[in-house]
């Protein structure tokens, strides 16, 4: 097996560049109607009165659903990390601004939208909880998975008290909204008690079970389909209210319903990265080695559900520190429920920790890279386990070399380019390797092609492509002979595409399924008197280009096409199931990386431009160097965005988000990303992590990137911005 797989073009690419890829909202169904959500305009209170008369009278309107007439459904989640309590028009309580309070269905999009603007709702308002800094919080049971929200090893207070050098700083990150380019969309249709939903989702099975719970029907009665999804980044990892409401509306009007969120509604009920206030203290010796780390995280959740931004998880394992305490506090606010957003925890947490490490480097007078090397963790100090593999040192050195780190003059505000200040910063990156049970089905046909099915999703991550490659490699056929289909609950079960786990989970299932299909075909040949391979030993067999042959005598062979042509069914089907083994008890499994950034800052105007970014990442085996690089680069763009652009601004009086559009909520445009922008793949052989040897690549690209930029800004200006995003007013 190659550590870095062939950089082939995306197999689904042609459909995307010709406009024939069908996203959820583009599902053509006869008799389709259009639903539009009406959202609350206050953050807390109750609905006093609904006046839907004008909306109901408007031409083309078929139904107006409010809490007064909406069918009963289950608002509460049952279980599952990605399930949420949802506001589904079941009561008159308003828990956050932009909560769905009505749904209008009409025969055209224009009419539904117009009628939605005619629904008048009067509220009795109550005092909302809106302040993260001042609200009362609590320690949740878990910060993430099974991790306790309060963790300590050693004795942090004593170690910090006795440290030579002390850093004690507070960092803040704002609310950020995912804003995939494809707005969330659902097309729902009922056939009796059977529901089919075309949904923009990162998890067809999660959406299926949430819908089944909501309507009290067996999951088998629900089919969720999603062949393409226009980005998700976590926001499509859960089934949200609009999906259930679309299905509810379809049932009410007895016709298929399409419900697409308007861009401002993308700031409403589909999750976001919660704001954090993070205190980090570092105690160190004069030589820069850490003796203690404290990482306190305060993040917001909603008053009706719990989400914890696990910002301190990486602090437990990134450096070899004997004394570490991490604490998570969540503060319930009258705001929508936050959710996972690209590298939840690691991205926000690395901004704090890696900024603090930079502050430490200046405090002890060391190169920031050197400080990190001196605290390198050779094994996982929190789990006290060896790493399944770890190539962080290589990432540092490859990154530093490609970036030209040696150009950096140590002192802050010491480098210039004409009138501009020049700064360079570095940060470490890490992301855990997750894996869930998954299955796949391989069907080999007498035309020599393989049809592979898995109930997974491709968010642009390259899943279609790499799974086709895995199947092709295991089967010994060209990639062009593989047809891979995903995004359908009629296919074998796969997990949510989140936590960078899709390849490790589904990839291994595809591999198992393809291998057993191959083995079965080999078995057919060996047992078939008509085959030239009849009676040979399976161990002597090799497969290439769709041909099964004797390794020692390649001229003796048979093809899949011929073997299956003689098979009564003309095809064979094999299912592969893969689940995590006990590797978790033997190893700590993480991808690692190093981020380098160079900025130019106008000292008078306070404007920051990133002129160069280099990331070096080691994530086990890379199945496709082309799509993997794109994932890393995309993550780095997100880091740049987090550093300089993204902030959701909520009016402190009304709790209303005031920049709910892409003109006021900024994400980078092409010109913000410099041409000197590269991600390097550090090859890594990990025989322990899972059979394919893959770690996640989708999220690590953002981790540390914002800190690297903030550190570069400090290096350029001598001003430490501890409050993201870094905008001119913080530098002038």
């Amino acid at each position, binding site marked *: 097996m190659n550590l870095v797989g062939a950089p082939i073009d995306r197999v689904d690419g042609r459909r995307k560049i010709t406009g024939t890829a069908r996203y959820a*909202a583009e599902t053509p169904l006869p008799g389709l109607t259009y639903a539009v959500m009406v959202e609350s305009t206050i953050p807390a209170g109750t609905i006093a009165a609904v006046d839907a008369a004008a909306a109901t009278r408007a031409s083309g309107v078929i139904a107006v659903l409010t809490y007064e007439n909406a069918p009963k459904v289950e608002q509460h989640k049952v279980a599952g990390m990605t399930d949420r309590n949802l506001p589904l028009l079941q009561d008159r309580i308003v828990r956050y601004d932009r909560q769905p309070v009505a749904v209008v269905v009409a025969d*055209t999009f224009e009419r539904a939208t117009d009628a939605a603007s005619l629904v008048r709702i009067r509220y009795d308002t109550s005092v909302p909880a809106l302040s993260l800094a001042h609200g009362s919080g609590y320690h949740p049971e878990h910060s993430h998975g099974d991790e306790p929200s309060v963790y300590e090893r050693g004795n942090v207070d004593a170690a910090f008290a006795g440290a030579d050098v002390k850093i004690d700083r507070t960092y803040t990150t704002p609310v950020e909204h995912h804003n995939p*380019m*494809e707005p969330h969309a659902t097309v729902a249709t009922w056939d009796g008690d059977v529901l089919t939903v075309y949904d923009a989702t990162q998890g067809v099975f999660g959406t299926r079970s949430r819908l089944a719970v909501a309507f009290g029907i067996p999951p088998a009665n629900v089919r969720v389909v999603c062949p393409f999804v*226009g980005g998700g980044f976590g926001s499509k990892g859960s089934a949200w209210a609009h999906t259930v409401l679309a299905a509810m509306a379809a049932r009410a009007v007895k016709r298929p319903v399409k419900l697409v969120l308007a861009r401002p509604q993308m700031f409403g009920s589909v999750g976001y990265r919660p704001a954090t206030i993070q205190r980090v203290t570092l105690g160190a010796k004069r030589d820069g080695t850490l003796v203690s780390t404290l990482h306190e995280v305060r993040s917001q959740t909603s008053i009706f559900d719990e989400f914890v931004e696990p910002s301190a998880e990486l602090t437990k394992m990134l450096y070899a520190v004997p004394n570490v305490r991490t604490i998570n506090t969540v503060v319930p606010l009258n705001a929508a429920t936050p959710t996972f957003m690209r590298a939840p925890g690691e991205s926000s947490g690395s901004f704090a920790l890696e900024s603090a490490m930079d502050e430490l480097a200046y405090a002890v007078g060391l190169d920031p890279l050197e400080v990190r090397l001196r605290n390198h963790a050779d094994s996982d100090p929190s789990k006290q386990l060896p790493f399944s593999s770890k190539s962080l040192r290589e990432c540092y050195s490859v990154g530093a070399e490609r970036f030209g780190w040696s150009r950096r003059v140590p002192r802050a505000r010491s480098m210039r380019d004409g009138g501009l200040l020049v700064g360079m910063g570095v940060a470490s990156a890490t992301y855990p390797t997750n894996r869930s049970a998954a299955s796949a089905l391989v069907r080999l046909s007498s035309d020599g092609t393989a049809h592979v099915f898995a109930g997974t999703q491709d968010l642009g991550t390259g899943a279609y492509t790499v799974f086709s490659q895995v199947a092709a490699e295991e089967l010994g056929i060209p990639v062009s002979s593989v047809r891979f289909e995903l995004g359908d609950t009629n296919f074998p079960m796969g997990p949510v595409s989140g936590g960078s786990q899709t390849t490790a989970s589904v990839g291994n299932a595809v591999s198992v399924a393809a291998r057993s299909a191959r083995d079965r075909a080999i078995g057919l040949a060996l047992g078939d008197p008509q085959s030239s391979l009849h009676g040979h030993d399976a161990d002597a067999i090799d497969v290439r280009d769709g041909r099964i042959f004797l390794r020692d005598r390649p001229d003796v062979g048979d093809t899949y096409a011929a073997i299956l042509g003689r098979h009564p069914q003309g095809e064979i089907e094999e299912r592969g199931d893969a689940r995590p083994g006990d590797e978790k008890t033997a190893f700590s499994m993480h991808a690692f990386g190093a981020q380098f950034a160079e900025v130019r800052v106008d000292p008078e105007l306070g404007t920051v431009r990133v002129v160069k970014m280099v990331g070096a990442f080691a994530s086990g085996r890379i199945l496709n160097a082309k799509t993997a690089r794109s994932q890393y680069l*995309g993550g780095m763009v997100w880091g740049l965005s987090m550093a300089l652009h993204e902030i959701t601004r909520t009016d402190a009086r009304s709790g209303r988000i005031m920049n709910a*559009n892409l003109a006021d909520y900024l994400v980078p445009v*092409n010109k913000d990303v410099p041409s000197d922008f590269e991600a390097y793949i550090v090859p890594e052989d990990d025989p322990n992590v899972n059979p394919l040897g893959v770690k996640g690549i989708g999220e690590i690209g953002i981790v540390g990137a914002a800190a690297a930029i903030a550190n570069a800004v400090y290096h350029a200006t001598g001003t430490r911005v501890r409050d993201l995003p870094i905008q001119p007013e913080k530098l002038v």
Partner: protein
Amino acid sequence: MPVDVGPRAGPHPVPVTLTINGMRHDLTIEPRVTLLDALREYANLPGTKKGCDQGTCGACTVLVNGRRIDSCLTLAIMHTGARITTIEGLADGDRLHPMQAAFLEHDGFQCGYCTPGQILSAVALLAEKRPLDDASIREFMSGNICRCGAYKNIVDAVAAAGKQNV
């Protein structure tokens, strides 16, 4: 002087004829239907994407008489008689337009949702005879947001297609 104001159309649905990718489409739509919704919801051409409906993303970019515009902030009824090109009309049968081929080769997309808009914008950029250095491509491709962050590869694709063009 004759009265030069055309008849009032609407607010009810009225016949609107559009020429899209060389094909005539006879639609019956309200004047308030945007060109974008006319394509996606009425002409069965959902290749053009709706990312924001507010002119803030460029996903809805189409060519009108060869010029790129955001189709979400214009009415379909304003474009009777115009030549409209969408992503569905770019390839010549099975032969990809060179810009499409360049996007595929350079992996100029991930989720693909911004991609039709990016490609049409890039085709127009070449037609506008903008300089093809890095800075110019970045500036003149800045009306197309890619949340997946495929910008570097997009620039490479545009530059490569531009080289072929000359």
